[in-house]
């Protein structure tokens, strides 16, 4: 099946087709070419997708974009494995993937640290905007009731939405790029102007110097992007080859200019925010009496006391009702009333979520007590605009701050102290500006202290250097150690000694008691019998031939293995006495000598000496009575 081109797919959107040219991409031939190339690459990757996950990840990282997220990997592998898909189910995922690939290339191109050409910056930001529009138009095809194509089946729509979510371009980077582009270009254009401080009131000394250097470089035509030396990743050169002046490196100058731009934008927000509330305060002061009366119950026939007892939501409803009746009515936000500050924007604003409202309710008690601010309808809309802009600038701050931190960390790793300090000089005011922007982000009245529980603490202290942070950490540890020692020292030594003595006494008593029990047991238990005596037949082999010996108490029960009858009585007595001598040495007191059948042959004991047994019946049949070995 021949694949459908993106422009054709986008043309399937009837509303879009009727209102304007089918695809915004068509306005940009370069982008169309880029997309066609991306589509070809995507087709190649999907066709060659290996079965092994590890190999697939390697291929995707190499051919599409580095370090894809797990859900992106799974989605791409799923698309590749769905080989039987046809129509939109086949083509739309490939288009999403191609657009994502183009967006990745454009993001990389835009955030190139060597890019200092205003025209190129502007064009790339516009390209990003175009790609986002194209993605949104594709996503619109999947929304029922918004011109969804009849070619997309319902079950395919669910699948395609999942694919679209997983492969969506990185909106934070794109949004930050679009937000940053125009003011960045503007700053570069006014860099050499005489009244630069008048145009950019937020300038610090370092930033002014940076602008001067930028203007000189632009005038001399130095370091054009194409001719610039190839930078290492993120634009930081090798430590050994780093320029002596950090500002002479275009990559560092770029990030510093970004910081400068972000601060300019943030200061614009803060200035507008403060100006808005200053005007509102003046307006409110002029008409406080009449507005107060109307707002607090005169029109509703309630007393001021009753009006004060109302909840913030009641107040807002009441004021909104007034406005409907009276064109001159104003929105009154009383900071002294908990939640009142948030009430008006919640009623008017359309983009505020319930969470935001909760946040406002939490922050309101921290507002300056007794101060009232009155906003007209125009001021409310302006407030909403500034707040929305501040939220965009907050995202921009996050992106730029992360880039700056990365470059600063790399400089620190390469022990480029001068560069680190130079970058820190830009970072400190940036963090300080962001801390001030939080008032606008939280939609708070200027001057109201941030609620303690909701304070967004910047991840860096503006006024501290690396050495100060290190010294502080070391001193904290030392202080903790000293506090522990002081705590130990606070306990009286006598008390410690007494406790130790008490422990020793308890253990000593335990040993004493147990020892007594052990002695008692030793004496109470009956004495065990003495160990059995031991005698081996081989010990008597020089005297008499024995086959077995058995100690029975102190009696040696021995079995003769050799001849006995040929010996005379005297010889037999000598043999048994010789055996008795040896046995006595082993502790025996008597001997009982038997033949192989167990018949007694002789006896010996210490009292009576040897006794030879005379057999009356010589024809006895031998019968063993002792064990054989």
């Amino acid at each position, binding site marked *: 099946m021949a694949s459908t081109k993106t422009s054709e797919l986008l043309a399937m959107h009837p509303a879009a087709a009727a209102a304007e040219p089918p695809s915004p991409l068509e306005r940009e031939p370069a982008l169309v070419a880029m997309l066609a190339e991306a589509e070809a690459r995507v087709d190649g990757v999907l066709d060659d997708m290996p079965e092994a996950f590890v190999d697939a990840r390697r291929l995707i990282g190499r051919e599409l974009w580095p370090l894809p997220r797990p859900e992106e990997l799974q989605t791409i592998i799923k698309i590749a494995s769905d080989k039987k898909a046809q129509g939109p189910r086949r083509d739309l995922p490939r288009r999403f993937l191609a657009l994502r690939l183009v967006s990745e290339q454009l993001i990389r191109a835009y955030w190139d640290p060597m890019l200092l050409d205003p025209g190129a910056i502007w064009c790339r930001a516009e390209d990003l905007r175009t790609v986002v529009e194209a993605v949104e138009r594709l996503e619109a095809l999947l929304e029922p009731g918004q011109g969804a194509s009849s070619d997309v089946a319902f079950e395919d729509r669910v699948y395609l939405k999942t694919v679209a979510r997983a492969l969506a371009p990185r909106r934070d980077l794109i949004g930050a790029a679009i937000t940053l582009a125009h003011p960045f270009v503007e700053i570069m254009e006014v860099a050499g102007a005489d009244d630069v401080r008048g145009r950019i009131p937020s300038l610090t000394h370092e930033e002014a110097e940076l602008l001067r250097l930028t203007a000189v470089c632009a005038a001399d035509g130095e370091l054009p992007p194409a001719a610039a030396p190839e930078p290492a990743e993120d634009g930081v050169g090798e430590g050994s080859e780093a320029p002596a002046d950090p500002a002479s490196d275009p990559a560092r100058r770029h990030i510093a200019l970004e910081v400068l731009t972000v601060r300019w934008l943030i200061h614009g927000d803060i200035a507008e925010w403060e100006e808005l509330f200053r005007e509102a305060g003046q307006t409110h002061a002029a008409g406080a009496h009449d507005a107060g009366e109307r707002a607090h119950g005169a029109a509703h026939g309630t007393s001021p006391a009753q009006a004060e007892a109302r909840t913030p939501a009641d107040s807002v409803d009441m004021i909104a009702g007034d406005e409907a009746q009276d064109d001159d009515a104003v929105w009154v936000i009383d900071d002294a009333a908990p939640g009142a500050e948030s009430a008006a924007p919640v009623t008017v604003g359309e983009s505020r979520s319930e969470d935001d409202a909760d946040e406002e309710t939490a922050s309101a008690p921290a507002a300056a007590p007794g101060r009232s601010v009155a906003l007209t309808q125009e001021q409310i809309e302006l407030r909403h605009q500034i707040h929305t802009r501040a939220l965009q600038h907050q995202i921009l701050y996050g992106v730029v701050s992360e880039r700056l931190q990365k470059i600063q960390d790399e400089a620190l790793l390469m022990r480029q102290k001068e560069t680190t300090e130079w970058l820190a000089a830009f970072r400190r005011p940036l963090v300080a500006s962001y801390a001030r922007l939080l008032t606008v982000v939280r939609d708070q009245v200027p001057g109201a202290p941030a609620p303690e529980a909701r304070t967004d603490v910047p991840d860096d202290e503006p006024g501290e250097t690396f050495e100060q942070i290190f010294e502080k950490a070391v001193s904290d540890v030392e202080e903790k150690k000293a506090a522990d020692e002081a705590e130990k020292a606070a306990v009286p030594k006598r008390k410690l000694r007494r406790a130790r003595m008490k422990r020793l006494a308890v253990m000593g008593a335990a040993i004493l008691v147990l020892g007594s029990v052990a002695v008692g047991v030793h004496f109470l*238990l009956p004495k065990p019998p*003495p160990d059995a005596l031991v005698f081996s037949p081989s010990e008597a082999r020089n005297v008499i031939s024995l086959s077995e010996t058995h100690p*029975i*108490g102190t009696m040696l029960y021995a079995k003769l293995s050799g001849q006995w009858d040929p010996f005379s009585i005297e010889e037999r007595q000598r043999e048994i006495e010789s055996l008795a001598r040896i046995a006595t040495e082993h502790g025996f007191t008597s001997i009982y000598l038997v033949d192989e059948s167990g018949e*007694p042959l002789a*006896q010996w004991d210490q009292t009576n000496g040897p006794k030879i047994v005379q057999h009356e019946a010589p024809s006895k049949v*031998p*019968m*063993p*009575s002792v064990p054989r070995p």
Partner: protein
Amino acid sequence: MVVAIIGVLSAICIPILATALLKANRTALAADGRSLYSAFSKYYVDQGTFPSTSTPVSRAFNPDTLAPLSNNGYYSNPSALTRKLLSNRVTAYDSPNTGGSDTQYWAVLTHKQDSRVVVLVANTDQYPGHIGTQYDGVYFIQGSSIVTVGPASAGG
């Protein structure tokens, strides 16, 4: 300190355990000795004589099978006794043939696990080393002394 306490506890527990084990072995072997003594007594009542040492062969005592006590129903299940004995057999047996009538006997049993536990089953005054002393019943042999097991040992 802890080591000292553990040592004292060991000094208490180990002798108690060893004594209990010895006592159990002695009690078990004494019970077996009483059964054997009873069998000898029944045999003597029926036959008018005790099993001989080797002759005559028809009534010679076999220390492995306990014949002729086991053959004629005087002692049932002899292997239950012999498997508890050292070398699985009666250590020594003799019927002092005074007058050729086998009217006396003595047998020695040694415990398999603890060779200090030795039991004498006897009806004789001819036990070697104690000639002239009448032994009739079951006794423990402890070194050179022979002590009675208890009231159950009397009889014959």
